[in-house]
């Protein structure tokens, strides 16, 4: 398993992750193995343990027990910064942006940090090469018209896209998207997902996304993990998972098969 030269090494693997907050179990024996270039989705009601999973993988929380491997390397005890540097990035349910900076500056920050060298005291942040690159990325996500705006002036969808665009500037191998379409108007959901998935696919990024909208789950993921009470109760192709009675009872909240259409 530790031989990373073979294609068999999963991009991301977790073994027996356990996490509890007092009496609440947020993760119980979470064991998954995500192959390279896979696109998986994570579903479950609020408090089912999806975000805890994302937080543990990206180093914000550490599991009480268990191991997390990235390309065969143990990253269980690393913090967010080291995990990011290793090649796992994430986006946030509530976009984490720098509210006092403009869109362009947010992008410039992420590019400056993505540089392997630490941010320089002498290199101008706004030199034209960096600005060009930042604008390219903004254009790719179709948010370049907002470049001079502050965060408080942005529509929800733009915030989501900027959040993801910033996460991608480090060229991650694995990306975890925490509810990429929550809070976004219904008609914007698919365009946003199209943009994001296209960008991720172009760089062959292994992707896991947390999502409540089952249409999006079926359309964009090739496998679904259903969480309930800190456990994975189903793990299969979208169609199968959504027809699972347990999933219908505990996750989608309905036993009627037509609800998933």
């Amino acid at each position, binding site marked *: 398993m530790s031989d990373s030269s073979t294609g068999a090494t999963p991009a991301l693997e977790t073994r027996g992750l356990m996490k509890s907050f007092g009496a609440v179990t947020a993760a119980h024996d979470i064991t998954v193995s995500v192959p390279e270039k896979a696109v998986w989705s994570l579903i479950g009601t609020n408090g089912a343990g999806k*975000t805890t999973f994302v*937080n543990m993988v990206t180093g*914000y*929380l550490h599991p009480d027990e268990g191991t997390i491997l990235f390309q065969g390397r143990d990253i269980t005890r690393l913090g967010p910064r080291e995990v990011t540097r290793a090649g796992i990035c994430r986006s*946030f*349910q*509530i976009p*984490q942006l720098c509210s006092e900076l403009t869109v362009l500056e947010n992008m410039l920050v992420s590019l400056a940090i993505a540089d392997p060298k630490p941010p320089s005291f002498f290199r101008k942040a706004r030199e034209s090469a960096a600005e060009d690159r930042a604008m390219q990325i903004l254009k790719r996500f179709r948010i370049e018209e907002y470049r001079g705006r502050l965060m408080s002036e942005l529509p929800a969808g733009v915030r989501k896209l900027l959040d993801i665009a910033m996460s991608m500037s480090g060229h991650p191998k694995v990306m975890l998207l925490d509810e990429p379409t929550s809070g976004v108007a219904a008609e914007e959901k698919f365009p946003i997902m199209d943009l994001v998935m296209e960008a991720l696919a172009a760089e062959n990024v292994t992707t896991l996304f947390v999502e409540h909208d089952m249409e999006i789950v079926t359309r964009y993921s090739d496998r679904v993990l259903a969480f309930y009470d800190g456990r994975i109760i189903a793990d299969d192709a979208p169609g199968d998972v959504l027809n699972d009675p347990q999933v219908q009872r505990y996750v989608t909240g309905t036993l009627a098969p037509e609800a998933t259409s």
Partner: protein
Amino acid sequence: MDLLLVILVDGLIYGAWLFIISVGLTLVFGVLGILNLAHGSLYAIGAYATATAVGIYFAYGGDAFPLGSYIVMAFSALLVAVVIAPILERGLLRHFYHRDEVIGVLVTYGVFLILEDAIKLIWGVDPLFVYEPYDLLGMVEAGPLFYVAYDFLVIAVSAVTGFAVWYFLNRTRRGKVMLAVIHDREMSQTMGVNVDKVFLLAFGTGVFLAAFGGALTAPMISVSPGIGVNVIIVAFAVIIIGGLGSIEGAALGAVMVGISRAASVHLMPELELFIIYFVMAVVLFFRPEGIFVRTQTRKI
């Protein structure tokens, strides 16, 4: 053995006094998010008001019932709170709740500068004395030494004050609302708590406690300009050690500082000047946010 006892008693007396002067500060920070640098001036105003009121009390026949002066003391502190708290909170502080904590420090520093001179304008520079309440209860023998019974009264009052604040926060409806605001201001606001009212009540309580500290201290000192300056920095250290916003923390911090200082005076007097900063630095080194504050994980 005697030495230990003396250190303990001295430490407790000083700690009790520290608790009274710092509990209001920590309460105000917990609820309003403002570290009130003018706390020391409010303490001084409490002391001046008490000195004036008790002086009048004895000048107009208080000798017939000297214990009444204790009531006058508490009443003076209350008067200070009722007069000053609304002016400061409504008129000034409310503009800064959404700003940085450090701005709050600077604003109250400005208030401190103003009040220091205001005190001088109102009461002049001549000291006031109200030693009657201090002598009233006589002396107490504790171990090898004599103490003034008033010192033990301060311990008792301090304990009662601590209990009262605790009871108010944990056992009364208004208190619980205040506690909810301490824990999560935004959440309480969305739950329909009238935060404005809570803030005024909390600040008023804070001013009262500061003034009450001054009232209790007035009989044992000479009430003169500059008495508030020293108080503020000591009180800060205490509540930082305990954890900002924590009532239990203020109590523990006060006792820790009190006993450390007493031990240093008796055993290594040359360290007294910076023992308090030393305790603070050591505590912060191991508990970066003080003893009673748990570092909260931000929800993301």
